[in-house]
């Protein structure tokens, strides 16, 4: 009998331990996913911040450039750079035949002509001289140099030819290949060529949409929250508004995209693919988040504040606007920033309103067609080229960086400025 009891107790203790272990492993699993996730993004993405350059001697031959004696600045701008660019690439291998010359040309980006032009415009005295110029390597060679490209594949399955690899290895040995910080990733707009693609256009698109979203959602949400929390009578209509807000907070984001498409584009005829429409759509999504945050922080202001103001003869409106609302601002602002961070990461509604269009100019206003950072991630992730994989990860790192900064900012506002009522 006693032994049975002990066995039972042991069994119960074991069950207790097991249950605890389940809990621990669940937490462990969740954190493991997070770690794998971040590790994977960083390990594929960090190399995109480096860019490979080929250092090629270029002879600025006035005759080949169709330049006359003592050219003006205008002449230099209009000069023909293609021939000298081609020649300097072909000169890398004096014995190259026509096919190989073509392959040599494809070792650098199609921007090489412009890179040479920029060099001369910076220093017009180079005419007739030879100078080493940094040229952007093609994305495949870039990947080879970073070790992301399997060199042992048979040649017909590779996009780099054996010949290109041979010349490239020679250049590496001569120290004519250099890896430098990839500034163009931040300053160039999107491009079909991975080596030239940058996030400037989608970054500006994101900034504009978020600004539009902030300008619409913040005032409307704060005003609505003030009404609902401070003035609204308790009746059916108010309840209906409240149910609406709670539901809107849980409606799938793609439905807001359909709203943008069906109303903003089809009925109001707003311009497609623009951050203006994107921002309005996102603001409708962010609205409930901000309203809920603002109401919560209005509710947290103790009634004694209101009573004191009313006792001093302030009207209800004065009490609210001069005392309650300013005291609730830290909570409202941090809620707003968190809502904007969500909007910044939103993709699906923006795809529906056409912000996936290929944009190779940097938008200058909310009325120019643009993409946004998450949409850029989607566009690049769907591209087949190998060079885009690291770009996607790098773009994700930039996006996550912004989200972390925004969330930290929200935390700081909350902890620094929020009054603790006790």
């Amino acid at each position, binding site marked *: 009998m006693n032994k049975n009891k002990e066995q039972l107790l042991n069994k119960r203790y074991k069950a207790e331990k097991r249950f605890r272990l389940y809990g621990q492993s669940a937490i462990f699993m969740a954190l493991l996913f997070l770690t794998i996730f971040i590790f994977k993004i960083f390990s594929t993405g960090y190399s995109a911040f480096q860019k490979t350059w080929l250092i090629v001697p270029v002879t600025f031959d006035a005759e080949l450039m169709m330049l006359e004696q003592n050219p003006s600045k205008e002449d230099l701008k209009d000069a023909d750079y293609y021939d000298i660019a081609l020649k300097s690439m072909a000169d890398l291998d004096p014995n190259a035949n026509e096919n190989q010359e073509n392959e040599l040309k494809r070792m650098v980006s199609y921007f090489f002509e412009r890179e040479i032009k920029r060099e001369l415009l910076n220093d017009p005295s180079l005419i007739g001289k030879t100078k080493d110029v940094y040229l952007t390597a093609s994305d495949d060679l870039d990947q080879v140099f970073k070790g992301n490209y399997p060199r042992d594949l048979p040649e017909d399955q590779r996009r780099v030819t054996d010949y290109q690899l041979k010349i490239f290895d020679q250049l590496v040995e001569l120290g004519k290949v250099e890896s430098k910080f990839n500034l163009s990733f931040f300053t160039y707009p999107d491009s079909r060529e991975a080596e030239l693609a940058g996030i400037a256009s989608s970054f500006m698109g994101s900034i504009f949409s978020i600004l539009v979203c902030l300008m619409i959602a913040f005032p409307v949400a704060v005003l609505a929250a003030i009404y609902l929390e401070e003035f609204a009578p308790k009746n059916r209509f108010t309840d209906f508004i409240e149910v609406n807000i709670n539901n809107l907070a849980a409606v*799938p984001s*793609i439905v807001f995209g359909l709203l943008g498409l069906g109303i903003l584009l089809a009925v109001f005829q707003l311009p497609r693919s623009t951050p203006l429409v994107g921002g309005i759509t996102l603001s409708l999504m962010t609205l409930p988040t901000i309203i809920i945050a603002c109401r919560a922080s209005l509710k947290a202001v103790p009634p004694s504040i209101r009573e004191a103001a009313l006792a001093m003869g302030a009207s209800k409106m004065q009490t609210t606007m001069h005392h309650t609302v300013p005291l609730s601002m830290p909570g409202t602002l941090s809620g707003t920033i968190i809502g904007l961070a969500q909007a910044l990461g939103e993709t699906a509604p923006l795809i529906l309103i056409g912000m996936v269009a290929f944009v190779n100019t940097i938008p200058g206003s909310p009325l120019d067609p643009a993409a946004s950072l998450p949409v850029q991630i989607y566009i690049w992730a769907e591209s087949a080229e190998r060079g885009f994989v690291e770009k996607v990860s790098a773009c994700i790192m930039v*996006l996550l960086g912004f989200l972390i900064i925004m969330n930290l900012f929200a935390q700081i506002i909350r902890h620094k400025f929020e009054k603790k009522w006790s």
Partner: protein
Amino acid sequence: MNLILFIFIVLLGFTSYYFGRKKAYTIQSTNKRLTALPQFYGYYLAIWCAIPAFIIFSLWAIFEPTIVKLLILSDYSNQGYLDDELNLIYEKTKALSRGQFTGEITPFIEASAEKYLSLRSIAQSSKAVIVLSIIIASVAYAYKKISSNSRTREPVEKFLKAVLFTASLAAILTTVGIVFSLIFQTIDFFKVIPLFDFVFGTHWYPAKAFVRDSSEALDPTMYSDTFGAVPIFAGTFFIAFIAMCVAIPIGLMSGIYLAEYASVKVRQYAKPLIEILAGIPTVVYGFFAALTVGPFLKEIGNSMGLDVSAESALAAGGVMGIMIIPFISSLSDDVITSVPQSLRDGSYAMGATKSETIKKVIFPAALPGIVGSILLGVSRAIGETMIVVMASGLAANLTLNPLESTSTITAQIVVILIGDQAFGDPKTQAAFALGMSLFLVTLCLNIVALRVVKKYREKYE
């Protein structure tokens, strides 16, 4: 032009605020008692400046285009044009006046364009004149009112309250907007495709509807067997099911552990870390699922001799599950912590171990809240878009094999609507019909879940 006018009106508003306040001070200096603080006199004037301006601006924006169009088209009225042709003429006129017209320019249209430009400039200048004169009149009227020291605080506060109330209607307007944007296209869609075929059909090939020659009349029989949404619905619920298989055990167990077992320190760090998972944009999960998880599962499957698609439902559903973990863990954590301590104490006093207390006492007590959190998770899984678009297939297969690819409502909407769409095309309308069903399903789930959670909160408060 509009911008200059707008800035001018804003400046006028500020000046009238200033004058109103100044007037109040002069009244005060004559030893009369003010009926409100001086700034209310200012606000009062500024509001009398803003409201008429706003009303006229919006009326103008609504009526100007219609009137201009009527005037332009009155030249063509007795030439026997059809409505569509008249619209075309008007569009051409507008394009020409903006210098964006590329077609053949007829003298008629050129004349219209000139007329259009002159009408526009007349409209603009008359708008400026009317707005300014009315504003000045109304401000003068209000100034007279405050000069006689009548009440200003009450009207100003009433106005502010009206503004607040209007803002709170935004939520309703958004819902109405969603319903409107979906319902018309959906009704048009069901005019061509019978509801029965949509709900019970088992073949979904929207691409087939696109091949049609645009000169052909709409032939409903062409679309039979094209828009059967069963595979889509099945795929949606299947992927959501896989996601919940991952999210419920992990989310629930971590919620329980955080609420009942974890030390303050562990809780302090683990909770925000898990919540990071909820803050990661879904497109990032999609990329992760497509680049890492999909190929990884395929490799494992191949090594076991299984045929795994690189875009399997398992990869999309699994990653979606990871995304939902924090929703379930946070909500169930909240729910469990709000179970009254007395229930725990009672159970411990009877000699129950901690896990027995959790399983037999706390879990049943917290069950409604936990069910609510799971329902919210399901609603998220059904509405999730980017993971499925990037990691799962786009062809709608009717399958229950997690290793094959399936498609979901959201993925189909994106596939259909990405790029240019023609409204009026059954394919586009199909996307809106799918959106409508998605909205209705998630709406029901949300309402039930929110109600359950609310009921539960009331029970223990």
